[in-house]
């Protein structure tokens, strides 16, 4: 297909997401579990002569849900193909995939900024085995092969070359993972998501480079940033490269002189299944509310800003926390603390909410205390930083450390008087017109109150005092 590009950077992704089924795509071996090599295999996933594939019903259901969630047109028949190529990780030297008729075509995924990324196709295929290179990829004289992964169910999602920056590609991956999690067809603990990326830049006449096997969405941005820079500064050839996450660089795998000869035939060991209207209706009924819908509902029901709603809704765990919170506290406050403060802490630690396993009950207690102004924002921030690392009993912590907001005017006045007395230079500077000096006096008061005084109150009293 011929595209006419105008942007500086053009990126297309081919993502392989493992479906969270109990068993592999074509046999009853467990899809997760014992990591000891070659302990989850059978004649089928080992490609032994005489074995035959048997399609997993749940994998099909999951794939249909994904294709629907991505807005694809679903094929009326399920047809698998044999994609023939030789490699040491291939149990049969052909992969059962879909070529003639992918499960879904012409879909799209909308990023938070509203940009639509077209999805060319969604189809099902099996995973090859895993290779271990005993002395590193270039240097080993042989490979070690583990067939535990062989036959795992994958969904391949191919995008249009519609992303124009590494950040945008990362955003896309985040959105896709959000969809996968909402659909409950992907488990970040046990399932793998990998991407191949096609990258071209205007500067080099859009010569296309394929980067293979980038694992996880965090690596995507890294790999693409590297590759774009590399293309700007080096000779660019049409080739296939691999991403080395340890070295932080891409390297040449093979030159792309010709297209791979896959010699596709229709898989004759599987029946052609009908995908009936009834099947699709069933699947549609089971569809949960996805991020975009949820965000719009938040905007309507809770009157929060669209931008905030989209960020919260994108991450399933964040959305669930938000929905619990708004049952008892003011949505605007919930937005501040969940969309902004919590995310700030998480980003600082380079973690997601799922990584951290925040204690929800304690978090809600914290928000209640903030709303009732029992603790100040400052105190709450500090407690939140703690909560993101370990479970603490919020109410007990506040009691033990005497962190209740000091709203008692008498106490604040006392601190203010003391501060004014102690910070004579600052007071003079302020009276001369130096605003900055005022802040240091406020700081002194806050220190005396261990952050528990309401900053607004403090400022009001000080200003009165120093008139």
């Amino acid at each position: 297909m011929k595209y006419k590009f105008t942007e500086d950077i053009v990126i297309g992704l081919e993502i392989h997401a493992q479906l969270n089924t109990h068993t592999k795509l074509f046999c009853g071996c467990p899809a997760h579990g014992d990591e000891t090599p070659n302990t989850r295999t059978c004649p089928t996933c080992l490609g032994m002569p005489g074995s035959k594939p048997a399609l997993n019903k749940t994998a099909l259901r999951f794939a249909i849900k994904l294709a629907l969630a991505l807005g694809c047109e679903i094929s009326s028949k399920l047809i698998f193909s044999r994609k023939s190529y030789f490699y040491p990780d291939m149990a049969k030297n052909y992969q059962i995939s879909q070529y003639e008729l992918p499960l879904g075509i012409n879909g799209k995924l909308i990023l938070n900024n509203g940009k639509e990324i077209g999805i060319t196709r969604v189809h099902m295929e099996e995973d090859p085995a895993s290779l271990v290179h005993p002395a590193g990829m270039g240097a080993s004289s042989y490979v070690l092969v583990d067939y535990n992964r062989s036959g795992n169910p994958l969904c391949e999602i191919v995008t249009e070359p519609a992303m124009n920056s590494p950040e945008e590609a990362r955003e896309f991956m985040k959105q896709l993972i959000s969809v996968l999690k909402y659909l409950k067809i992907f488990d970040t603990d046990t399932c793998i998501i990998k991407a191949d990326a096609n990258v071209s830049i205007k500067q080099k006449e859009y010569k296309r480079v394929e980067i293979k096997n980038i694992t996880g969405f965090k690596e995507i941005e890294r790999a693409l940033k590297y590759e774009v820079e590399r293309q700007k500064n080096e000779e660019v050839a049409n080739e296939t490269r691999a991403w080395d996450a340890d070295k932080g660089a891409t390297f040449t795998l093979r030159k792309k002189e010709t297209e791979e000869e896959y010699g596709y035939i229709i898989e004759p060991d599987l029946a052609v299944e009908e995908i009936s209207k009834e099947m699709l209706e069933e699947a549609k009924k089971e569809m949960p509310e996805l991020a975009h819908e949820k965000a719009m509902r938040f905007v309507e029901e809770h009157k929060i800003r669209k931008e905030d709603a989209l960020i919260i809704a994108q991450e399933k765990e964040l959305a669930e926390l938000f929905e619990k919170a708004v049952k008892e506290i003011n949505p605007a406050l919930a937005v501040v603390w969940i969309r902004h403060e919590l995310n700030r802490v998480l980003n600082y630690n380079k973690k997601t909410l799922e990584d951290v396993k925040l204690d929800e009950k304690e978090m809600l207690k914290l928000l209640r205390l903030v709303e009732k102004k029992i603790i100040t924002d400052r105190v709450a921030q500090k407690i939140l930083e703690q909560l993101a690392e370990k479970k603490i009993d919020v109410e007990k912590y506040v009691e033990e450390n005497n962190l209740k907001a000091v709203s008692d005017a008498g106490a604040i006045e006392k601190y203010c008087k003391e501060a004014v007395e102690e910070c004579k230079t600052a007071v003079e500077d302020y009276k001369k017109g130096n605003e900055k000096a005022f802040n240091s006096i406020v700081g002194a008061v806050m220190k005396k109150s261990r952050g528990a005084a309401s900053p607004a109150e403090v400022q009001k009293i000080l200003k009165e005092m120093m008139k």
Partner: protein
Amino acid sequence: MKSLHEINGEYNCFNTIQEYKEKTEGALKGVKISVKDCICVKGMESTAGSAILKGYRPLFNATAVQKLLDEGAVIIGKTAQDAFGFGSFSINTGKGFKQPLNPIDKTRVTGGSSGGSACITKLADFSHIALAESTGGSIACPASYCGVIGLTPTYGRVSRYGLIDYANSLDKIGVMAKTVIECAKALEIIAGKDKKDQTTADAPVEKYTSFPGKGVKGIRIGIIKESIQDGVDKDVKEKFLKTAEFLKSKGAIVEEVTLPVTFKHALPVYYIIAMSEASTNLAKYCGMRYGRDEKIEGSFNEYFAKVRSKCFDDETKRRIMLGTFARMSGFRDAYYIKSAKIRTLIINEYKNLFKKYDVLISPSMPNTAPKTEEVKKLTPIQNYMMDILTVGPNLAGLPHISVPVGAGLPTGFMIIADHFDEGIMLQVAYEI
């Protein structure tokens, strides 16, 4: 009474012979089963007749094998065949394998690819059934040349789980025996849906043994016109027509029918589809995990090519090459896709006749078993042409049975029925 080893020493019907212990229960107790070497028997070397699978001892039984064992049968050995089923004479045995010899005349071929099966079926003077396989005629052909009964069921009637693939949309496990009843009995046992093979049919398994004996009165039989024209030996034609007359005399209604599209195109269509599928099936044989291997050295391309080139015989290489070509981009539409479409036309042609006729008949092979010397002189294309009478029903997945007729060198009388109509086919076969 010669021992199996003695018979094998003379005729090479087995690649492996095994000791067995008689069982005391089951519908098949006392029956000995020989299994074509492409059908997996747990723990028994199963090579599909090819050097590349020497040493492969499957970790599982084929479903058909298991069903026979569950009914008290015992397995006596794995029979010789053309490597992977690639042949019509069993002379394309793999490197290091011996050619099975015709039980009637050792200078002649057994037919193929289930040559060893037909050979031992003829020679056995004990209760014996051969479990064999047909892709383009590999049961009917050797049955015809060796003078035994060969039954190929409807595609999907018997599970292919445990069958080492030649062509997955064409392979069928079937049986050979000296009598129609034995074939019917075996079919009852091995037929049926298998969740391990998703191409097995839902159609219920009938009591096939109840059909023989019902006679042929009123049965509508179509003689395939093209099968008795030029290219068929005079001798074969005579015996065939005599048998057809006999059936008529027993009350059958016999008329001439025609299958023009099938006889013009079934041969190339069969070969193109079969070789396309076969070339993908054989890709897994590369010296990893089972079978023959080499010392691991070189890149995977070098290693794979080395093992394959060393172990594959000529005919195997030829079919892999042709099959790879037929599905390469640029040629795929003209060969693989085109053939699959013409296959539909051929199936329709048969289905139309079955609206009016209960069974169709033709000779199984255009000749009697040729001499080995003569066969060796044939070019590849001349080899392929020998399948002219069997590729049609095989391509259409129709059940067919070959029954020996006449005296002298054996010739086969082939009865073809509609999908899942094995009953009527056995009914007619029994009368011969």
